[in-house]
Structures are given as C-alpha cells and as structure tokens.
C-alpha cells in the first residue's frame, strides 16, 4: 500500500519538476530568444514572478532523486551509471543557471558583469532542459548497453552513443520547447499592456515550435523503429492523452484572451500532466528500455520497512511543504492576481 504512496510522490515530484522547473527554465529560453529591449522587460518580469518560488521549483528534482535512490535502488543504479555524462552536464547547467540568477539580482554593483550573468543565465536555461530531455530520451531509446565486461565494448559504446544521438537530441529539444511554451504562457497572466502582447506573441510562436518538435520526435521514432515511439503510437491511452493535450490548446487560448490567469495556468499544467501521463503510461513499469531488454522499476524495490518509513516521511513532509508552498504562491499573487494588479514593483 505504502508503495503506491511512494509511487504517487515519485510521479508527483516528476510532474511538478517538469511543470515548475520547466517554466523556470523556459523563462530563460524566452529571454534568450528576445530582442535586446524585450530582454530587460523579461528579466524584470521573471524576477518579480518567479523570484520567490524559483528556488523551491528546483527542489522537486532533489526530492525525485532521493525517492528513486531510496525506494528503487536497482533502477536508480542503472540511471546513475549509464547517464553519468549527460547528468553531469545537467548539473553543470543547473549550477551555472542558479548562481547566474542570484548574481544578477543580488550583485551589489549593477555594472558590466551583468552582461555575463545574463549570458550565463540564458544559455544555461536552454542547455539544461535539453540535457534533461536527452536523459529521459536515453532511458526509453533502447540504446543503453548494460554490461559487466568492459573489455568487449568501448567507452563510447557504453557511455556516449546511448545518450548522444538524433532521437535523444530531439527529445531534448522537445522538452526545451515545452519549457519555453510553459513560461511564455504563464507569463501572459502576470503582465499587462504591451508586455502582455509580447508574451501572447511568444506563446503563440512557442506553441508552434512545440507542436513541430513533438511531430518530428514521433516521426523520427516511427521511421527508425524506436520501440518506445512505436508503443506510444499504438497505445490508445497515451494517444488519447496527447490528443486531449493538443485539444486543450483551444480553451487555453480562450482563457488567455479573456485574461483568466488562473484558468490559463490550470490548462497549461493539465497539458503537462497529460504529456507525462502519455509518456509514462506507454511503458510503465518498464521505464528503462535497453538494447537487451526492458527494466522494470517495480522489480527489486526497497524492502517494506524502508518503503513504509519513506511513505510516512513523504506524507508528513508533503503535509508541511504543500500548504507552505501554496501560501507562498498566494502571498505573491502567483495563484490569483487582483484586478488592480499593475505589474509594478514597489
């Protein structure tokens, strides 16, 4: 029973990281693809909107990792050994991005160094989600080579090729586009006037990019007989979830037009939930597909005693954190904004 609590929190953390962390990365991507003028606007907007929560957004990743290593040690072991290099790159990106964000807002002197903080922030905002997407792509690509015999296979065959190929790069680009779409859509609700128009335009552009990337990913996978993609396209539930997610674009755009920011967020969040459901549902619980077969994450879970304590910890932790987080978002107008909100800081 507790195993289901743990599973719930695993996917809950994954969902929130993809959604909140993603929107956070996306804000940097949007800034990267903006004109010089818009960049300053964007910088101020995301500081105001995401500043109070941005740190919390990224802790979902730590929670996810900790749950994986405690509850699914064998499964985690494979991820951590075979994704060593792309994960290192993700960490590098997270590090650079985190410090750049804080440096650019907390450096006592606002001077020439700002240019560097901005560059670091924007660039790492783009590459980090790409590498994260590549990690997920690698897990389901069917290219991981699990071996004990390191003399038979080369370093590149085990530690490079599985994560560095067209399929994983497409997965990475898809996730980066998703991030940019999320950020620009969420930011519409936070702004007024000219800036609002700007984000509406960006949101439209990134929606198109996202749809193209998704299409490319599926087409490439189908063409090259990637098992995961084949199974994805033949799974009725996954297909319906993705289709529904696409359909939601219509009410989403309506909500944006009517300036209904809470509804906008709800739809965008629901879309992400559907996409994750579609991806996970296709192969759950065999969420790693290697060159020699599938690996079931439910095989060899931690003993019941561990799962029980972890489940209780998660329920208690969640009981403290979630209301706190909700209150934080509410306090800084991230959940519903008053009508007279002008978007100006004090």
């Amino acid at each position, binding site marked *: 029973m507790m195993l289901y609590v743990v599973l719930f929190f695993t996917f809950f953390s994954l969902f929130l990281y993809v959604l909140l962390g993603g929107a956070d990365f996306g804000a940097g991507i949007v800034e990267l693809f903006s004109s010089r003028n818009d960049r300053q606007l964007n910088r101020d907007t995301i500081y105001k909107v995401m500043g109070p929560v941005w740190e919390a957004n990224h802790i979902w990743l730590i*929670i996810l990792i900790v749950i994986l290593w405690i*509850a699914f*040690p064998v499964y*985690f072991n494979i991820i*951590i050994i075979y994704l060593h290099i792309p994960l290192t790159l993700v960490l590098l990106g997270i590090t650079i991005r985190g410090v750049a964000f804080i440096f650019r807002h907390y450096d006592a002197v606002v001077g020439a160094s700002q240019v560097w903080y901005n560059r670091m922030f924007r660039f790492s905002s783009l590459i980090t989600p790409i590498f994260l997407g590549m990690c997920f792509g690698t897990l389901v690509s069917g290219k991981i080579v699990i071996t004990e015999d390191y003399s038979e296979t080369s*370093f590149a065959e085990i530690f490079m090729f599985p994560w560095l190929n067209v399929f994983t790069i497409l997965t990475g680009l898809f996730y980066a586009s998703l991030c940019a779409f999320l950020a620009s859509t969420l930011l519409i609700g936070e702004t007024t006037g000219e800036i609002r128009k700007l984000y509406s335009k960006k949101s439209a552009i990134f929606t198109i990019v996202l749809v193209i990337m998704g299409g490319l990913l599926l087409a490439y996978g189908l063409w090259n007989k990637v098992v995961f993609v084949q199974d994805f396209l033949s799974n009725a539930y996954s297909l319906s979830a993705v289709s529904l997610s696409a359909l939601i674009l219509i009410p989403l755009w309506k909500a944006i037009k009517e300036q209904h920011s809470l509804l906008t967020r709800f739809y965008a969040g629901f879309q992400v939930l559907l996409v994750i459901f579609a991806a996970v549902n296709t192969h759950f619980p065999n969420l790693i597909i290697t060159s020699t077969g599938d690996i079931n994450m439910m095989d060899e879970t931690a003993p019941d005693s561990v799962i029980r304590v972890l489940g209780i910890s998660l329920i208690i932790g969640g009981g403290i954190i979630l209301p706190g987080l909700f209150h934080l978002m509410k306090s*800084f107008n991230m959940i519903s904004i008053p009508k007279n909100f002008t978007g100006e800081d004090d």
Partner: protein
Amino acid sequence: MENLDYARLQMAFTLGFHIIFACIGMVMPFFMVVSHKKWLNTRKPVYLKLTKAWQKGVAIFFVTGAVSGTALSFELGMLWPEFMKHAGPVIGMPFSLEGAAFFVEAIALGFYLYGWNKLPETFHWITGIIIGISGVASGILVVSANAWMNSPTGFDVIDGNFVNIDPVAAFLNDAWFTQALHMTLAAFAATGFAVAGIHAFQILRNKKPELHKEAFKIAIFFGAVAALLQPLSGDLSAKDIAERQPVKLAAMEAHYETKKGAPLYIGGIVDEENKEVTHKIEIPKALSFLAFGDFDAEVKGLNDFPEKDLPPVAIVHYAFQTMVGIGTLMMIAALIFFISLKKKSWLNNRKYWWLFAILSPLGFVAVEAGWVVTEVGRQPWIVYNIMRTSEAVTPMPGMKYSFFLYVAVYIILAVTVTWLMKRQIKVLNNSIG
C-alpha cells in the same frame, strides 16, 4: 593515480566546497534575524541596513549551497553507485527528511527575501527564523547519514545484500548525536568568527565603524558561545570514537604501539614507513584519560590492526592537530570577547580587532580539517567494516576529466562569490547614513 583516487578527490573537493557554503547558509540567517529583531525593537536604521546586507549574503550562500548540494545528491550515486544501491534504502530516511527541511527553508527564504513591506512585520520576521531552524535541521539530518557510514546499524548483511533494514535504527545510529552536535557547533563557531572577522577588519579600516561594531557583536556572540562549547563536544566525540572506531582514534593520535597509560602527542612528524612519530611534545597518560576517562586505560595502537584496514595516518594526524589547535585558539579568543564585555577599554585597542580579523578564515580551516579526520580516518571503508570504498566506485573510466571539470567550475564559483562579497561590503561602506 587510478579512477578510484580521482573519484575520491572529486568527492572530497565538492564536499569540501559545499561544507563551507552550507555552514554559512545555515548560520547567517540567525545573525540576520537578530539584527532584524533589533531593527523592529529600536527602529535604528543601522540595524535595517545590516539586516538587508546580511540577507543578500544569505541569498547568495543559500543558492551556492543549494546548487552544490543538488550536485552532491547526484554525485553520491554517480561516483559511488554500488554504495547507493545497497546503502541508499538504509540511510534514505535522513535524506528524505533533509529534502523536506530544505524545501521548508526555500519556502521560508522566498517569503523572507520578497516579503519586505508586503507581509505583516512579525510574520516576516518569523519566516527568517524558520530559514535558520530548517537550515540547521538539514545539516543535522545530513550528518546523521554520514554518521551511519561511521557507525552502520539497522541492517544485516547476507550474501552481500543489506537485509532486515530498520531505517529508524539506521537514522539514530550511535555516532549520530556526537557528530551532529560537533558539526552544528563547528558551523556556528566558524561562521561566527568568519563574519565577525570581516567586520573587525572593516572597523580597523575605519569604515562605518558603528555599523560594523553592531555586526561584529551579533556574529561574534554566536561564534564565541559555540567555540566555548566545542571542546566539550570534542571530548564526547573522542570518547565515542575510541569505543567505536579505535583505528581512527589511533590514526588521529598517530599512536602506533598498544599501551596502557598512553601519552598524548602534540605536533610531531609522522613517519609512516618506520611507524614512528618524531619531534613531538608528549603528555604522559593524557591519551588514555581523554579517550577512556582513565589514566591507565589501554589504547590500542595502529600496529595491532591489519595493514589493509589502516587509513593514511599522517593526513589524519595532521588534520586532527590542525583542528584541535585552531579550536583552542578560537576558545581563547571567545574568552577574550567575553572579558571585553566588561573591560570596554579593550575595544579601543587595535590589537583586539586584529586578533579577530586574523582568526576570520581559521574556523573554516578547522571545519575542513575536522571533516578530513572523519572521512579519511574511516578509509579504506566507505561503510565502516562493511563495504570498502574501492568496491563502491563507479565502473565508468575517465574520472580524471570529471574531477578537473568540477575543480575548474568550483574554483570559478568560489572566486566569484568572494568577489561578490567584497562588492557587498564596499557598497555597504559607501552607502549614505
């Protein structure tokens, strides 16, 4: 050097970096809330200015601590996959609770940093306290996981698998309390002296002395109390190690021959090949007393342990001496501070401020040295007497490059953060009022 050595170096380097940022991120919020409270009580602008200056420090150190901590949560698995596969479930409880505490800290920080003039004053101040408390809780929980590596309990090993796991027993292992106490006091002492020293230096430069004297008083108070308590906690730790990890104690003291009424060595050069210590000061029977509370107790020497189970003796001994030496200096400085509360004339003596300015970085040197004692002193084991570090390391070759990458990134980070702090102080000194 082998892959294993580079993996160890990378772990040592990243942890050594993280420990500084984590300590500061854990302790500085307390300085900040004291200053904030003084502002609320007195409405003297100097306290508001100080609170806001320290809050920037807290934000910068929290984020650097958080990202280096995120990297560590991955690195544990990336460098030591076999360790995590077996030990992960056993020590999962403190880590999951730590995740929760860290989350609470991030939420409270969000409220605090962005809450000026938006939240009710008292609530705003309380969120500052929550930052501090959850930070200390995170620290204690992480140390509990490390203590388990020194004192593994809560499981049985059958055919190389860890079974019959009791996560609560593992969490509350024997080393947990003494280690957590020692680390928490060390964080307060090191951060208190570091921050106080920086402000003492500003007083010497005669830049905004009123502000820096207030800052000094708050920081050194925490540091001095911790520095005075630390020797007591050190004594508890020594007795604990003597009982649980006799080989680590012997390495700390470079004690080769098993002896009743063993002497304590101060200083000395360790000759690992000939198994002797030269140029030392010897205090008869002191080691037996410190370790077992009995002048004639027998202390087992390194020669009576199998060669393959010995840690590098010289490193552990020198690190231990460094830690104890600096700890003693800080304790004396703490006494000087408390006396100066009565003898106000000392505050006009430049030597007084120089003392604290010079001591500024030493607390962190002691923290690093202490951590070397506990980690290197446990080698060759990653889990004491259960799993060797060489059995835990990643099968991926080329750790050399990963090590150099981390060194480069972290050095750039450290330099940048130092530079940022200098700029903060400069702006504070040049501000009006």
